[in-house]
């Protein structure tokens, strides 16, 4: 597994989401075609940030995604979406400002007479001879700043609002692709920290704690949530916490890229299926569902399937990722990593408890007014299902053949 494959998986997922957006956008009366170049530009910026090796250039590209994201959120054309767009813009810009400060601290703290560029290969050998508080503070500021963009505690407030109030396709894009950029940005700093000997505080442990707190927060919040969009948003937030936790176990490149590809496919699928279910149900609150309205079973089956792929289905990419966490935990004698699959299971059971009653609704075809839109969405979503399944089986193949080399 490498970054080329992740980019390819990203491209297919992006095209699927874009197709849904262009052909079936229904969140508002916005002319979505005129926004297409803007959305493509967002994807290109995200993709460029994955490949950028210079830490400051990577930061510039990630900051640029914030600007595009904030405007896209407002495609919902509601007052609430504007507030959420503002929250997204301010919290992310602020977090990224702190991250930039951290990058400069690290760069300055490791400065010597030789010319240097701000990339991992250049900075790595310098850390051992530059053990100072400035570098240490820089590492922490960079990681903490970026966690705001990832949506980790205590900067998690924008996540569920943003994913819940944006059009589902925008939520797909933001939740699937942005965490990949951020994880790839944080990764070099954690590697730099391995060379740092005299620590006052550990960036790694702090990130792990933030990831875990975010997961537990999502778990408790989802239990009390009735809104389908918000439930899906909290599922995405839970996985962002999981991603941070996974990163702290120092996975090799193959494992890291695999879990990033998993994040792209599963979250795109999750929000796309949520969009179908939401429209077919006619209500975003589970308690507000009109039982006489009935439901096309396709919409609930694919959503539950997507939830399964996000947690427990044995051939799902996230299930493989759980196995990788357990393996890494056992290899490093961190047996408490068993906690992660258990949290996953609890989260999944809560979700099942919320959505299984929908299976009792009377079976019907999609309603006439939304039939064309929903069937088109369903057909495009099949591509995502296929992609996610292929990635899952590819993970099993890698696991069995030693493709994740240090497992």
């Amino acid at each position, binding site marked *: 597994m490498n970054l080329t494959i992740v980019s390819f998986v990203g491209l297919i997922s992006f095209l699927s989401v874009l197709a849904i957006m262009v052909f079936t956008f229904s969140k508002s009366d916005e002319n979505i075609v005129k926004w297409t170049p803007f959305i493509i530009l967002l994807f290109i910026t995200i993709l460029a940030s994955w490949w950028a090796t210079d830490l*400051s250039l990577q930061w510039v590209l990630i900051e640029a995604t914030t600007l595009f994201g904030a405007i896209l959120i407002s495609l919902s054309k509601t007052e609430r979406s*504007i507030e959420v767009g503002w929250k997204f813009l301010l919290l992310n810009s602020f977090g990224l400002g702190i991250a930039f400060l951290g990058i400069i601290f690290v760069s300055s703290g490791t400065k010597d007479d030789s010319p240097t560029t701000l990339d991992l290969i250049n900075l790595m050998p310098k850390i051992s001879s530059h053990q100072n508080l400035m570098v240490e503070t820089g590492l922490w500021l960079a990681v903490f700043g970026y966690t705001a963009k990832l949506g980790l505690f205590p900067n998690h407030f924008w996540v569920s609002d943003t994913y819940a109030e944006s059009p589902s396709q925008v939520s797909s894009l933001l939740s699937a692709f942005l965490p990949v950029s951020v994880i790839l940005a944080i990764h070099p700093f954690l590697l730099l920290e391995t060379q740092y000997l005299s620590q006052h505080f550990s960036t790694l442990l702090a990130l792990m704690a933030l990831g875990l707190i975010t997961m537990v927060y999502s778990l408790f919040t989802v239990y009390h949530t009735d809104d389908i969009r918000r439930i899906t948003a909290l599922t995405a937030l839970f996985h962002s916490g999981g991603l941070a936790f996974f990163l702290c176990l120092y996975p090799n490149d193959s494992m890291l890229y695999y879990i990033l590809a998993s994040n792209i496919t599963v979250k795109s699928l999750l929000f796309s299926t949520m969009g179908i279910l939401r429209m077919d149900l006619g209500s975003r609150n589970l308690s507000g569902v009109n039982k006489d309205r009935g439901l096309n079973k396709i919409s609930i089956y694919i959503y539950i399937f997507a939830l399964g792929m996000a947690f427990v289905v044995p051939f799902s990419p996230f299930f493989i990722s759980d196995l990788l966490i357990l393996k890494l935990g056992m290899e490093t004698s961190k047996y408490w990593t068993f906690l992660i699959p258990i949290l996953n299971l609890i989260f999944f059971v809560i979700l099942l408890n919320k959505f299984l009653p929908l299976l009792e609704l009377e079976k019907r075809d999609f309603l006439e007014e939304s039939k064309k839109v929903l069937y088109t969405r369903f057909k495009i979503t099949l591509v995502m299902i296929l992609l996610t399944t292929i990635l899952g089986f590819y993970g099993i193949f890698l696991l069995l053949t030693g493709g994740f080399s240090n497992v």
Partner: protein
Amino acid sequence: MNVDFYDLVYLLLLLTGILALIENRIRRVVDLIAIQSFLLIFPCFQVHSITDYHSWAVVFLILLFKVFLTPLTMIWTIKNQRMSENTSPRFGFLTTMFLFLIGFSFALLIVDNLRKLPEAVDKIEVIYVFLMIYVGVMGFILRKHWLMLMAGFVMFENGIFLLTLILQEGLPIGIEIGAFMDSLLVIVSAIALQIRGVQFKHGVSEE
């Protein structure tokens, strides 16, 4: 003598930030932002030589993005949105001063741990820069009006730019252009969001 001049510039940079933080008239805050941005030009020549191509490129970027485009965009918005001139802060002067003193203590602590600075740069100047960043952060906390929040963001960005200049002696020009463009686009995004918000205040959604 040279060092004294730069001390004055750094002090003025901080003071314009403080004035912008406690000023309640929007237009005046934009003017202060423009002045602060203009003052950023001088430290470029403290770190780089006056004959250096890079320093003139940075001066051009500061003038274009920070001194002209950012304030002009904000002024255009004030006129376009027919904004009320007066705003009120979230907290009073006493809270502001208390928060400032906390930041001042932290700035002293951090600067005390700094090992290597460019020869021309004095520690007191670094304290001013840290406080400038902090004043920007305080803008986020203490102000309510959205344009004042953006003014806080601009001050925060100005401080980070200056710190980058001092500690890193500047970044490659391509990345500097990107960073300047980004900070302007944050303002543009904010304005676009605000204008769209006014346009569909009572919008409904199907999905």
